[in-house]
């Protein structure tokens, strides 16, 4: 009697070596895919969506690339997931984490081929990761006390992050923008408060940070275009027809005259509401919902600037900036906090009119206006800036800083190598492999820059043999340079997250000895 089929028709099962191979192949394929984007001389990818319009994205951001891929290999999915988490958690290092995890698996593959049990490899990797983390901890620089120095640290980190992106030409400019924006947040990590407005036209250098706040809306017709010493009421209320919300209420009348009466009453109600709003003593009214023509006209009559349909984020930011509260009822004008700003005016950027609030009370939120040649450039610029902002806001909370340019990897590799020499047993092979995987990152950076990686990494290793060395790869001049002098820094938090999640992911994939794939859910063809 043959062994009965256990699984459903299309489900498949892969065991032992085959399963492991499938995971390794999938993971390494993903790594090779994103590997070329690593480092300051990394290349970009074009992604074309299969959806309507075949929209094109040009990007260098690991998380964005991986998010758009349709992958079937389960191990590859694990890598994509860690990249996504890295993006959510610290915002940068999304490529590095995948590359490191991939390199770890590549090394593990060799070890497995040499008949070392995956569990032994895992325990070796764990020891190595712990050791690497400690090595980093010993070398961190913390300039929390010295505000001046810390600011220059931030500046360096921002420049390092941006140098691998499309903004690298103007990285100083953008680094300044990002640092200024983050410093305004005063330690909060709520990046929602930083608004990024993209306007095609001009060049990237024309991008600027606005101290005040810019709302991408138009001012109602016939209303003042410029208000000084504005008193702003931020509201979220229906200004179309204020419905009676009690359930089941409806208008049922039997004659035309009554319709007119009720319409009159409705109008009266709206007029009252507008009066109440105006009674707050404001000269600017911003609503999240639509404002219909009738109330708009009333506002115009009263000389109040009314802005309709500002989206939710806009409202929240505006409330944050001007110090007002978001109101929905208007019966107690004395206790509603009203926002203030020195000047509201309509400004032109490119061809679009925007509303500019300047001289605001609380400077937490701010706006960055990006200019650039095309939508693709702007999108990529936004992503890059987002990365930089994320890293900076995380660094403000965790002020420990490391050098960049492959320096941390070399420091870790050195310590891990030393550990390997001290560890008896098969684990030492795994620990050695870990250090090789770490060295792979500077190697890839050098390779991507078209440099002789073997030579450079060897020089780097030699340089690191000395205690307290700051050597890293200087991609610009193509040699080993002092990272402290070159001002290339990275955030400790990012590096730590890369190290830990990559090890965790590699461990997870290594532990698998069987892949069971369920039958894909049948989709009905909708013709």
């Amino acid at each position: 009697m043959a062994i009965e089929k256990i699984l459903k028709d299309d489900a498949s099962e892969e065991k032992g070596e085959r399963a492991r191979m499938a995971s390794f192949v999938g993971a390494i394929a993903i790594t090779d895919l994103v590997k070329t984007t690593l480092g300051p001389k990394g290349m970009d990818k074009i992604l074309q969506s299969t959806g309507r319009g075949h929209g094109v994205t040009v990007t260098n951001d690991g998380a964005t690339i991986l998010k758009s891929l349709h992958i079937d290999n389960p191990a590859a999915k694990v890598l994509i997931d860690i990249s996504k988490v890295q993006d959510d958690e610290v915002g940068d290092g999304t490529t590095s984490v995948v590359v490191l995890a991939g390199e770890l698996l590549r090394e593990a593959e060799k070890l497995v081929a040499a008949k070392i049990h995956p569990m032994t490899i895992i325990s070796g990797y764990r020891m190595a990761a712990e050791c690497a983390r400690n090595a980093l901890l010993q070398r961190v620089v913390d300039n929390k006390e010295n505000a001046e120095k810390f600011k220059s640290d931030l500046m360096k980190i921002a420049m390092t992050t941006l140098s691998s992106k499309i903004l690298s030409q103007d990285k100083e400019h953008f680094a300044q923008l990002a640092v200024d924006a983050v410093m305004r947040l005063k330690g909060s990590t709520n990046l929602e408060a930083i608004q990024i407005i993209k306007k095609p036209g001009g060049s990237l250098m024309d991008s600027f940070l606005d101290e005040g706040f810019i709302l991408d809306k138009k001012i109602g017709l016939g209303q003042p275009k410029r208000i000084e010493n504005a008193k702003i009421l931020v509201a979220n209320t229906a200004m179309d027809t204020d419905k009676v919300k009690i359930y089941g209420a409806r208008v049922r009348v039997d004659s035309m005259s009554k319709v007119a009466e009720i319409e009159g009453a409705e109008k009266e109600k709206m007029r009252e509401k507008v009066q109440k709003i105006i009674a707050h003593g404001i000269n600017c009214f911003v609503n999240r919902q639509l404002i219909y023509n009738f109330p708009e006209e009333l506002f115009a009559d009263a000389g109040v600037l009314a802005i309709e349909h500002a989206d939710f984020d806009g409202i929240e930011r505006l409330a944050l900036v001007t110090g007002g509260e978001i109101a929905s009822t208007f019966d107690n004008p004395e206790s509603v906090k009203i926002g203030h700003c020195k000047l509201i005016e309509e400004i032109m950027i490119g061809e679009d009119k925007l509303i500019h609030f300047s001289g605001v009370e609380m400077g937490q939120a701010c706006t960055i206006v990006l200019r650039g040649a095309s939508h693709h450039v702007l999108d990529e610029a936004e992503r890059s800036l987002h990365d930089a902002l994320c890293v900076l806001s995380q660094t403000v909370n965790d002020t420990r800083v490391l050098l960049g340019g492959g320096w941390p990897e070399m420091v870790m590799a050195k310590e891990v190598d030393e550990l390997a020499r001290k560890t008896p047993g098969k684990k030492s092979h795994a620990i050695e492999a870990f250090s090789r995987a770490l060295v792979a990152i500077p190697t890839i950076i050098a390779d991507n820059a078209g440099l002789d990686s073997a030579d450079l990494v060897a020089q780097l290793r030699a340089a690191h043999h000395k205690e307290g060395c700051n050597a890293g790869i200087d991609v610009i001049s193509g040699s080993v340079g002092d990272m402290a002098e070159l001002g290339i820094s990275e955030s400790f938090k990012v590096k730590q997250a890369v190290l830990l999640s990559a090890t965790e992911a590699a461990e997870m994939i290594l532990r698998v000895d069987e892949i069971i794939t369920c039958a894909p859910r049948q989709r009905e063809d909708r013709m």
Partner: protein
Amino acid sequence: MALAFDEYGRPFIILKEQDQKTRLRGIEAQKANISAGKAVARILRTSLGPKGMDKMLQSPDGDVTITNDGATILEQMDVDNQIAKLMVELSRSQDYEIGDGTTGVVVMAGALLEQAEHLLERGIHPIRIAEGYEMASRIAVEHLEHIAQKFDFGPTNIEPLVQTCMTTLSSKIVNRCKRPLAEISVKAVLSVADLERKDVNLDLIKVEGKVGGKLEDTELIYGITVDKDMSHPQMPKQIQDAKIAILTCPFEPPKPKTKHKVDIDTVEKFQTLRQQEQKYFDDMVQKCKDVGATLVICQWGFDDEANHLLMHRNLPAVRWVGGVELELIAIATGGRIVPRFQELTPEKLGRAGLVREKSFGTTKDKMLYIEHCANSRAVTIFIRGGNKMMIEETKRSIHDALCVARNLIRNNSIVYGGGSAEISCSIAVEAAADKHPGVEQYAIRAFADALDSVPMALAENSGLQPIETLSAVKSQQIKENNPHFGIDCNDVGTNDMREQNVFETLIGKQQQILLATQVVKMILKIDDVISPSDF
């Protein structure tokens, strides 16, 4: 397919649409069933023990699960065979009943089936085998009780509990920080346990996970976390000594459940209705304020106007909180869930020392922590980890550890792990077999052999020589008359499980043997499988 003939020799059909069905009978059926059961057990066999491997499962929608937990593997597998489904059920019932040992039970059942196959080949009737297994399992369970040890623990001495939880966790991916996780689990269970009644309601422990951070950041919160934020962005983010009104009625215009119509046909009606509505909102908020609440937690949504009124009156509020969470909050804060605004009274408010909002990472993820509650009988375990699969697997592992801790509070007997209990049982059953007259003797002896398969799998997974190791341990157990010798999976150097601190719960082990025997008995009794050939 068997045909029946009537007295005139004409064939007639017994089953409907007979030729479209496949049918297996007699020894064929039993063998097919056994091989199916064995195939399932073989999949799980490599997951057993601290050096066991994980399985990667891809769901029909393409989601990936990586796990080491027997019950989860089987549940996610697309099993089609009926007997294989029985094995899945078996693992699940172990999960429900005990929570741990879901892999072991399937491996055990697989070994029993394998032994049964040999006996069938010798021509022993399946029912006799089943009966022999039944007797043997009784002997084994009794023997377990005999070798079990009781240990004392108390709120101050949690070490034994932690050690047992660590044994459970050591086979999972989280074994990197099994110590802190085991401590968290034990503390969580102890804080919700009813030590007098010896019972633990695991519903009071909420296990939440959020990706990001590292596993070491996992923490036990004496309170509740809710994955929500304040309804109005400008409400205070931190409230000291909160008095919480827990509502299940929305801050929205009233919606009577009976069908009705309010017709507006005059201007007066329109205006009175409007005023009523305004007053209604005002009343709702005022009522909450009047009883002295400083925080409102509501199951439903808020109308914009109500939201602003709450903000205006300085009454922070949280909306869209799920029913289960609401209950937990009520338990933790000692409040009552209030279904109507009219029924709000100061006594019904819950109390918490600190309520704060915490944000994570670079996205706008926020969570609400309710801590220092009046009654800290509800706790939350908050898991962090590198990726989604890691979090899910950690949740499952924590669940196992919690179950183990609970079982120990119910019954503080333990047996030693590392296969030592199985080996000891095997020796006892083997000895009993010789005394038994009748054919069942063979079945009992086979049972003893099947018991050996668990330590054998452990040794195999740990990269040891299975037969050599097992025979060495067995002889050591008999020679020294000490049931604590097991397989030294972690290469520590000793195989005395007492020294290695590897414990398992007595009830867990007993349940494993009983459940496995039951399922095997059931499978053995089947002698006819009729299934439609195409569907």
